[in-house]
């Protein structure tokens, strides 16, 4: 089929993730997009399947002091430290406006203590109708208590799920950390605990030194690496986890182009989250959506489901 015939048979880009149907497999990752409804509409909304909120905590957080972002070769180190206004303000002042956009809202909830997580989920329950899914973030490397620690082991994830599932019956995703030693086992623990989908994964622990100042760039020394640099690593993690669980797995890390999306899908992803690339181009998602559509049409593939996992070799 030639490119000019493409429009005749536009493929269907909607995806189904553990019972949740999204209009597109392209999800905006947590921490990149403003909670400001003016950015939840055209032209920015074109091609967007869902948007993850900034990582929320039970109470407001000021975030980290000092430098918070640093460019590295094809990557970005960040140490934001979960600056957010807290779950309550989010539910009252922000969520209603965002939900009105019609874009599915994924609430990224940063796990601190189990108590706080339960409290937050109970609060979110009151706004359940505006929430497409809760994404439990057991993987933030930029805070002290909790955060990534929960995602490092199957045990940690199991206890989080046990608490969370008591308070939240809606769709529940778990966003894993690549710092975990055995991602497949952590993923299985989340599946066993009742997760509807996994997100693989969050940022990679890195650091930078300001050579002239002779000291670490970040006040917390370590920070999270994201962006194109980590794509090969994230793809490997996705491939491993997708081969080890039977719930859908969403790929995340360095996705920048339709090729990257297709690589993730072929490796077994049910959808992808796109984060850092939005800093490079606020409108990258609609471009990716377009070229993805064209490529699928050229391939003669009618739906995303026909691609998922089709590029897996024999490992796992």
């Amino acid at each position, binding site marked *: 089929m030639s490119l000019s015939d493409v429009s005749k048979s536009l493929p269907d880009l909607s995806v189904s993730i553990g019972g949740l149907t999204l209009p597109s497999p392209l999800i905006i990752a947590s*921490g*990149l*997009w*403003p909670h*400001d409804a003016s*950015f939840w509409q*055209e*032209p*920015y909304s074109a091609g967007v399947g869902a948007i993850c909120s*900034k990582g929320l905590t039970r109470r407001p957080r*000021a*975030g980290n*002091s*000092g*430098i*918070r*972002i*640093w*460019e590295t*070769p*094809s*990557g*970005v180190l*960040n140490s*934001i430290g979960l*600056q957010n206004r807290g779950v309550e303000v989010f539910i009252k002042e922000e969520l209603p406006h965002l939900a009105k956009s019609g874009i599915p809202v994924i609430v990224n909830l940063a796990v601190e203590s189990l108590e706080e997580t339960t409290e937050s989920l109970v609060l979110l329950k009151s706004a359940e109708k505006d929430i497409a899914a809760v994404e439990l973030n057991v993987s933030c490397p930029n805070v002290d208590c909790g955060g990534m620690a929960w995602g490092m082991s199957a045990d940690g994830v199991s206890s989080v799920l046990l608490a969370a599932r008591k308070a939240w019956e809606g769709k529940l995703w778990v966003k894993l950390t690549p710092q975990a030693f055995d991602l497949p086992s952590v993923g299985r623990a989340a599946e066993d605990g009742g997760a509807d989908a996994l997100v693989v994964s969050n940022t990679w622990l890195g650091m930078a030194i300001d050579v002239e100042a002779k000291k670490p760039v970040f006040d917390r020394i370590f920070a999270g690496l994201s*962006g*194109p*640099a980590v794509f090969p690593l994230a793809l490997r993690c996705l491939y491993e986890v997708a081969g080890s669980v039977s719930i859908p797995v969403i790929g995340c890390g360095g996705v*920048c182009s339709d090729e990257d999306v297709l690589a993730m899908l072929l490796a077994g992803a049910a959808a992808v989250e796109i984060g*850092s690339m*939005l*800093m*490079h*181009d*606020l*409108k990258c998602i*609609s471009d990716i959506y377009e070229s993805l559509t064209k490529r699928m049409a050229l391939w003669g593939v009618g739906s995303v489901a026909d691609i998922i996992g089709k590029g897996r070799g024999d490992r796992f």
Partner: protein
Amino acid sequence: MHCSRGLEREGFLIDKAFLGGGVYSLRFETKELLPEILPGQFFMLGPHRWKSDPFLLRPFAVVDWSENDVEFLVKVVGRGTKDIVSCERGTPFRLRGPLGNGVFTAARGRSLALVAGGIGVAPLLCAWKFHSDVVSSFVFGVSNGDWAGVADWASSKVSGLTVASDDGSLGYKGTAPDVLKKEGDLIDEIWACGPVPMLKAVYGAFGGKSLIMASLESRMGCGIGGCHSCTVKTQRGMLKVCHDGPVFDLSEVFLDELI
């Protein structure tokens, strides 16, 4: 290109002039008409050929603009700015903007002084152009004679610009705040942009007496208030330079926490 790309615009470098002191003036022609741009607003930009390295666009204050062109001053300080000024005329650029909600807002009937340090002159040139009627004085402080070209260039745009240099090789000897102090004590409002030490000096000399609105810098990711990279500590909490600023009332800002 698409019909509407929101804040993501495309422009071509149409003019590049080296002004000395590592500073270039760059002018871009945009494909679409620009909306109104307020003094203090900025763009994040980079040549289209930046794909993944460099990855982040760099923020620059608007110096001047018309319907479909926009001008910036770029001082070379690192790899991004070095590569930006190395671009030939005709190079396509990504221009994200205008950005920023905290801007310089004209206050009629009050005495208003502008004070710039080094490359901080950029947004104040824009402020002057669009509010010259309300500005009583404009002091431009630089480190030394390397800045002669920039000072001349600025003087050609701003009638009555007062230039000062740390080593006295250009204009008055002294810092911009020093000169401003001499100009008179009764300034209702000051618009400032420059290095943190300059902002501290201005605040030291005029804080409490004059309203000091300053355009701040910070490392940025998105420019639209999404990523929380660019915050400064203020009495109203951690505020985003890109979204709540870049212009802030200096009395609200914890000056010692500026990076």
